């Protein structure tokens, strides 16, 4: 009745941004969490920086210095603060409680709605957690500038890939909940894989060759290692192009799988409760 079919093409984008903005403001209600998030983020940086300082001293390993590693640690902490993996627990909670019914009676593509919601949260994290944390960390430990202008631009692209890889991965896991009605084990297993192959704790260049070859093919590296390595100029030239292309490919693969799973999920959906 009200819908204007075939209307302007920007309408979905406006709706998306409106959703994102509302989600951002929702997160403002939890400002008290901000201080804790900043504190724990900094703590993680301090601990990891101390470990690398102990390991590397004033020297370098594989051409990587302590300063490089401090920057690396700050960037991977930032990425983990803005990544969209949290989608899994959000969807799981709504599915268990039956609140998903409320989402589904809206004329919106559910995964897109989730993306907007998660990006709203990320934007909030970026503004209120990441920026203060990076400023404090940079003043305390020092942070290196991007290796080059190209590295800086490529970093922004890799950040977008990081968000989309984590989102599509979270979506796939969340959709499994439609079949198994629980996601705990999947979240745990995926978290373990992410810790190992993401490179947040140990950069991929310190991996044994065989393991590094595997890690360089998997999607996990894009949610920690790749953006940091690009920033530092460790991934450059043709390798940079190839890495970004692989990231886009993983987004496409996971996105397509998510969409397929979503279509199937809708048809076997059991909305809980009366």
């Amino acid at each position: 009745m009200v819908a204007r079919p075939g209307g302007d093409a920007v309408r979905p984008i406006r709706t998306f941004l409106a959703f994102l903005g509302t989600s951002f403001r929702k997160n403002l209600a939890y400002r008290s969490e901000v201080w804790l998030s900043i504190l724990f983020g900094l703590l993680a940086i301090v601990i990891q920086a101390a470990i690398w300082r102990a390991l590397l001293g004033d020297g370098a390993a594989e051409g990587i210095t302590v300063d490089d590693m401090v920057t690396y640690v700050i960037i991977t902490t930032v990425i983990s603060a803005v990544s969209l993996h949290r989608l899994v627990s959000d969807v799981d909670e709504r599915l268990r409680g039956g609140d998903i019914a409320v989402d589904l009676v809206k004329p919106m593509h559910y995964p897109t709605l989730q993306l907007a919601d998660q990006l709203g949260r990320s934007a909030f994290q970026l503004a209120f957690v990441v920026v203060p944390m990076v400023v404090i960390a940079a003043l305390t430990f020092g942070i290196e500038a991007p290796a080059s202008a190209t590295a800086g631009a490529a970093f922004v692209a890799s950040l977008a890939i990081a968000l989309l890889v984590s989102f599509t991965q979270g979506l796939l896991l969340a959709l499994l909940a439609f079949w198994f009605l629980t996601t705990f084990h999947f979240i745990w297993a995926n978290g373990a894989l992410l810790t190992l192959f993401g490179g947040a704790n140990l950069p991929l260049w310190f991996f044994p060759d065989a393991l590094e070859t595997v890690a360089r093919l998997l999607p996990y590296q894009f949610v920690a290692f790749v953006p940091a390595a690009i920033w530092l100029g460790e991934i450059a030239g043709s390798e940079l192009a190839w890495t970004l292309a692989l990231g886009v490919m993983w987004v496409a693969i996971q996105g397509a799988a998510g969409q397929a799973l979503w279509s199937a999920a809708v048809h076997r959906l059991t909305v809980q409760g009366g």
Partner: protein
Amino acid sequence: MSIITVSHLGKDYRQIRRIDGRFGAVRTLFTRQSMTRTAVDDISFSIEPGEAVGYIGPNGAGKSTTIKMLTGILVPTRGAVEVLGVEPHRHRRRNASRIGVVFGQRSQLWWDLPVIESFELHRHVYDIPPERYRAMRDRCTELLGLGDLLQSPVRQLSLGQRMRCELAMALLHQPEILFLDEPTIGLDIEAKDRIRDFLRTVNREQGTTIILTTHDLADIEEICPRIIVINRGGLIYDGAIQSLKAQLGSQRQVTIDFEDDPGPITISQATLLSDQGRRKTFAVERSVESTLAVLSSIASSHPVQDVSFAEPAIEDVIRTLYAGLGKAVPESDELDRWSRGRVVTQ
């Protein structure tokens, strides 16, 4: 042209069978055995534009399951559903843009934000032209007395206030059909009245079709001329509330105060319901003749001080129906669907 058509609709839920006894939990984990539980079975009805229909039944009767299928968020196992000319589950989003839904037990408002933020987002999601949005928002605000509430965070609202906001939001895009799943659950009398008045107005003035599930039969009496009653997944009554009363509430209560305790009284046309000595209550056939016959036969032998009558309450009627007594009610063919009602034996 019906706005909703449901024919032979059925929904089964599959449940993994639990195994009791030794290692039961472990065996349950590996078993492929499952049980099928039928939540909705062979339900058929159709609803015309502008109707207000109460969809009632005891807990677990399949009300919410039906509503979910009508709103496109649950896929039927059998039968067919058509809402506004399309199958809701195949065209969920298209269906969603033309209907409004209120779940009494769930909120569609953003918990941490002022109500108005949810309304604004709703405007975008449903692509409501700004002028129409403002008009509708102001109209709902006036009718439901929302006023200052729009600026309050949802979490600070009382349940009654929140439900009024939920209702307003569900109507902002001027849906053709409004589905309400227990909209008055847990509300006080005043909030219920306000919501009922509002729904009546919306139904009458805008011609919005209303489908309402509830356990509060006053909701039905005040809003819905027609009721559909289901039990254990099957349809047991579809028709006017008045004719249901006429069919099932065929007896009225007559309470007689005597000058003195007349002792036990036995009359063939009346059943003694309660005996408090001087005051006795009988159940009598509803026709004027039988009531008069009972009265005159009693008054002729015992001096009577006062007489009062009670019509069957809708609660009693529905209770009778739930109890399965509806089976005995004959179907009348002369009357049209509105006043006839259809009692289906299970």
